[in-house]
């Protein structure tokens, strides 16, 4: 596998674009919004979340063209345009571009709306647009159509493992010369249903172990993080190289990580608390919220850190010997500055890992063989 991240586009509760994410990471805080209230005999709660604003999509696409595009696809579209702009990748340099979209929930608002009309009202003539947008591949299709890209498109829905699998597929396409570049990323949207259940989950787990409680108390998030991947490039403007990307069962062979490398762990699963990690760990979910594709934001932060050399305070320390420590604002220090791993423990007992290497490190190692994938 030879892939280089040459552009990043992010949108979330922290704002829009790489600089907004950097600013939030430096400030170490993002304030969640409270979008709606739930009142039932058994549950009374204000559902808070990190909500994303896609207004700036109008900078790239005429508003009129967005009329039939739902919020989920707009999130993915905005992330895509920002990544391409960040990479400075005009149509002439894109070559044949592939598109890979990871999502944990898909277009939940349209899906539930369509379910309401078809199941409650038993209406066989409900909105065809809502049905079309509820199909999980809608976001990738809209991206391809707006960009005019005829390369392969792929939508992956493996819940919390969707992002590392998307990176694996993107690197495979580059390796097999199917494409010259890949737009790969993850998107999930906030919906009443997901907020409702996250709130319930939090109220259930408040009495659980400290690390588990702090994980589940992260407000639900929405947004997208997209990347332009190109074949191995030494362009000085590039962020980092993708050394490996993969998913395997937790009971399989262990992953190899360079000693001392920083590991950004995406919480979201209580399994994190019971897994021994013999390396420095950090978490940044407090910046973007709890969502299945949260790992995509970790990869963005890892790439930014490798490019700029800056380091940001972790929101949750998960050291091997202090697994239950939850120390906000704990700066990450004393690490291997050349490698960063992004790790996700899956609900179904699998582990996803994407390892990035700085451009400088890759130059030093040129000629040596690297493990290409897990």
């Amino acid at each position, binding site marked *: 596998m030879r892939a280089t991240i040459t552009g990043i586009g992010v949108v979330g509760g922290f704002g829009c674009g790489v600089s907004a994410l950097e600013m939030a990471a430096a400030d170490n805080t993002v304030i969640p919004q409270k979008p709606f209230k739930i009142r*039932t005999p*058994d549950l009374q709660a204000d559902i808070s979340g990190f909500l994303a604003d896609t207004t700036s999509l109008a900078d790239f696409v005429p508003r009129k063209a967005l009329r039939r595009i739902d919020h989920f696809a707009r999130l993915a579209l905005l992330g895509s345009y920002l990544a391409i702009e960040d990479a400075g990748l005009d149509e002439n340099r894109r070559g044949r571009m592939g598109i890979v979209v990871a999502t*944990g929930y*898909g277009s939940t608002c349209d*899906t*539930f709306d369509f*379910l*309401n009309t*078809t*199941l*409650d009202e*038993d209406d*066989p003539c409900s*909105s*065809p647009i809502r*049905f*079309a947008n*509820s*199909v999980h*591949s*809608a976001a*990738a*299709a*809209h991206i*391809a*159509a707006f*960009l*005019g*890209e*005829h*390369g*392969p*498109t*792929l*939508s*992956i*829905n493996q*819940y919390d*493992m969707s992002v590392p*699998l998307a990176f*694996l597929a993107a690197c*495979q396409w580059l*390796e*097999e*010369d*199917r494409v010259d570049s890949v737009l790969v990323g993850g998107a999930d949207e906030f919906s009443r249903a997901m907020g*409702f*259940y*996250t709130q*319930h*989950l939090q109220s259930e787990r408040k009495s659980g172990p400290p690390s588990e409680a702090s994980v589940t108390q992260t407000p639900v998030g929405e947004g997208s993080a997209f990347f332009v991947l190109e074949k191995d490039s030494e362009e000085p403007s590039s962020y980092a190289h993708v050394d490996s990307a*993969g*998913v*395997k069962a937790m*009971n*399989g*062979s262990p992953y190899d990580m360079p000693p001392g490398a920083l590991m950004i762990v995406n919480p979201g699963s209580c399994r994190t608390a019971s897994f021994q990690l013999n390396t420095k760990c950090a978490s940044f979910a407090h910046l973007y919220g709890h969502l299945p594709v949260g790992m995509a934001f970790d990869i963005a932060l890892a790439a930014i850190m490798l490019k700029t050399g800056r380091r940001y305070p972790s929101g949750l320390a998960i050291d091997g010997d202090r697994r239950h420590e939850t120390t906000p604002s704990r700066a990450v220090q004393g690490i291997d500055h050349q490698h960063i791993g992004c790790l996700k423990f899956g*609900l*179904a007992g699998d582990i996803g890992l994407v390892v990035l290497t700085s451009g400088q490190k890759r130059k030093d190692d040129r000629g040596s063989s690297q493990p290409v*994938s897990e």
Partner: protein
Amino acid sequence: MRRLRPVAITGMGCLCAAGLDLPSCADFLFRGKRNPAPPSRLAVASSPPYPVFEVPDPFFDPTLLNHACRLRNSQLALMAVSEAIRDAGLDRRMLGAERVGICIGSSVDESIGNRVLRQSVAQAEIPVITPDHRFLLSNPAVHIAQEFELSGPRQTVVNACAASADAIGLAAAWIRQGICDAVIAGGVDELYQVTYNGFISLMNSDRTPCKPFDADRNGLNLGEGAAMMILETEELVRRRSKSPRAYVLGYGAASDAYHFTTPHPEGKGLRLAIMEALRAGSLNPEDMAFVNAHGTGTLDNDRIEAHVFHQLFPQAPFFSTKGYIGHTLGAAGAIDAVLTIACLEQGKIPGSAGFSTPDPELPVSPVSDVTAISGSIAISDTLAFGGNNSALVLGIEENGT
């Protein structure tokens, strides 16, 4: 696109309205009968109901499995996997000892779990399941991994109707790139109220048995089913002294970049996908013994395919399976792939059910009767919502001759 190594297929399994295993499905096609009927498990508002192709009950044999499984979608998948594993001469111990991945295409997948979620939200009840549990309950790839204790990656591709053709193409890359020793690849979709009503809302469903490529075609009938294949590395095939049953010789995918629910009027994406699949196998259009068309019976799909076939495969006979088994959506690419291989093995293709009157606007028509074919390679294509187009080139000889 450079030439890619063929990937061995050592076992296959299939169940759909035509039968509960691959041999019976293939035999059914050659008998020329079909049994569409009103849906028996869905509450439908339309009158009269639109016909569908359901998998006949009982199809599920829990005695084959170690774990309980109540979800129809996963039951379909597990039955097809069980057949494929038996066909490949593998057992649970062997699967556990290798790096075995799972790559499944589905359009329904987690939407099944949404039904329960939505019900609780609508009634503002304390949830009976969470989004986490929704995923665990409704993901066939997870169920297969748990049942057979597999250690490799598990992935669900949701590229709508092209999902399982893409899953097979991706799984072949996992084998070529050494990510897995073996991969269980294929697709599954059960009949589901949302897709049933969704296609009606799009006015793409036919109230009568579908008629792919016919002058009087008027839309599709939905179906359900699953098909799985076992892909293995050369090294594992050699170590097991197993003769592959067939090969994935090429895979291509391309986007129309045109419209969400309407194919490109000139079939641009489909042509690109087919050409990429042929290049991957260093093959030419004239090497194809036949084409297994997507052939849904909708006006646009069949028109686009007929024009592309006329340009690329003017001599190759083609047919559609949809008249026998309906459109199985996310499972369609995989079901067509295993049926394509079954046809190559038998040296013949079935007549295209529902086709009787050639459409004067189409430059080519499918075969209407069982037709003998010569050659060891064929191509199966799929078109999907969102303009996803995929093509698989399959052969029963490694060198494609």
